[in-house]
């Protein structure tokens, strides 16, 4: 992990040790997660055109419906912000999400076992493995608010999906060596890391702004 990512995450962890996630931060996080789940759902929707016997079908079918379920779950659990600027910035981040992940290119032709499909699996894996909020929260913090409970459920489900995804990433023969596969996976990780860092920077800036406002109000 690049040192910038490490420092962004350390800073977020330090702030979240003492401050809870308010509506502005919840909104940013929820819209980002919905953006990610939206990309996965949009790509995976075409899985229903694949034959039932196609080896990855059962797994991707399961993931498709889980993504929709979890996206709506976080939507229900979020305390939405009333600040329009939050939505503007979140939309800008989501545009970057679609652009930098090149999500549109995975939506076109039907799935087949080729480099493009493998690339998508690598991207989806990076989404699930890298975008984790629980490690940033104090271990003793109860996950008993609707928002935190939903985050926990999403990460638990992501953990399950990752296990099957790893099997596909390991076993799919797309004519690449393991080293080339690792490089491809690393490149997708780097993109997702950058986007997640941006979200965390915006969330921490928003918390700091909140702290400043609270201090001024006192």
């Amino acid at each position, binding site marked *: 992990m690049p040192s910038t990512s490490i420092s962004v995450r350390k800073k977020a962890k330090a702030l979240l040790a003492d401050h809870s996630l308010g509506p502005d931060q919840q909104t940013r996080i929820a819209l980002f997660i919905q953006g990610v789940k939206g990309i996965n759902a949009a790509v995976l929707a075409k899985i229903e055109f694949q034959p039932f016997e196609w080896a990855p079908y059962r797994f991707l079918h399961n993931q498709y419906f889980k993504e929709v379920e979890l996206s709506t779950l976080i939507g229900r659990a979020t305390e939405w912000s009333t600040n329009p600027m939050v939505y503007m910035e979140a939309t800008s981040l989501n545009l970057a999400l679609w652009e930098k992940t090149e999500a549109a290119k995975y939506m076109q032709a039907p799935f087949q076992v080729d480099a493009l499909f493998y690339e998508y699996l690598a991207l989806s*894996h990076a989404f699930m*493995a890298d975008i*984790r909020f*629980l*490690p940033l*929260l104090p*271990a*003793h913090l109860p996950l008993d608010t609707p928002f935190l409970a939903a985050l926990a459920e999403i990460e*638990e*489900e992501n*953990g*399950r999906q*990752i*296990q*099957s995804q*790893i099997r596909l*990433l*390991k076993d799919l023969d797309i004519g690449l060596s*393991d080293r080339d*596969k*690792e490089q491809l*996976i690393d490149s997708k990780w780097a993109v997702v890391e950058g986007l997640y860092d941006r979200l965390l920077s915006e969330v921490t800036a928003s918390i700091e702004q909140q702290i400043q406002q609270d201090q001024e109000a006192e």
Partner: protein
Amino acid sequence: MPKFNYKGHDVHYELYGEPGSPVVTLCNGLSMRTSHWAPYFELLPKLGLRVLTYDMIGQGASSKPILGLDFDDHAASLNALHEHLGIERPYVMGISFGGVVVLKYAYTYPDRVGGILPTSTFSEMDEQLRAHAYNLYMGLVRVGFEFYLDLLIPLNFSDKWLRENKELIGIIKRVGMTSFELYGIQNLMESLANFESITGNLDRIQCPALIMNAEYDALTPRHLHDTMRRHIPNSRLMLIPHVCHAFTLEVPELTSRLIADFVRQVEENRWQGDQSVWIANEDPQKEPVAFPCEGDPLRFIPLPAGEPKRPAGRKTTGKTQQTGRKGAAKSGPARSPKTSGHGKPNQPKTRSRS
């Protein structure tokens, strides 16, 4: 955070204690990381040892290649780490998964090891261990990491510890859930998927070996440790009372004392690798810290070994292999009874104090 690069992968390590002291390398179990050894960072240096811990590739703060690693790479990367740090003949302890790495390391790099402490581990899988491994794997893959930890916790800790640490358990699980890359654990488990017995290689291990097994280890039970004892010529088996698979977390003072005594015996040429079985005292300050096992070490029901028992006299034991680093010692360790005679191969060798 010190890191060493092995074949393009970062290996995170920590080294404590005075340079020049004998080095004990601690190898993690499957879902461990260096911080699990934190008590040893103080305890072992106080006992005159230097302690090296590291996260295997796929664990903790080390690199986690998404596509995983061959199992053999773990012993090779450990050897590379020792070379990198200029450690020539370390004492290498490994628990559970790490214990298998240690066995492999010892027969692959016989010139680069002073002694080994395979702990809560195995050289071959029996059907119970296979079943546990399957449950853990399926729990991880199908239900989730939290359930995997739920399955592990009662195997790892004693009832007493669980009762006394009820509130800690939730935090342990949270830290475990959030500090691991889930695919890293899966990859480590899968690296053992095609594991074949290495028992046939154990006689290649010539260095002193103190095998440690908890009394109530239901995950890697006694007979798996006994197999190692019987096949490693220069070994002893130490039984740790009233604890379970992860006893190194539960009784670090006792474990440190046993490690330090072992290293001291080897360094002072007092080690006797006679394949005998010993029981540790619960009190780590006790002298001696261990006494010979007189019952059948393979039983939970404490029947005496080799029935019918002879009424009196010395009844056993196996060949005594004296092996300190600098040659054979003429007498046993000050706190250990001497051995004599030859027991039957492949049978537990016990000692009588009469």
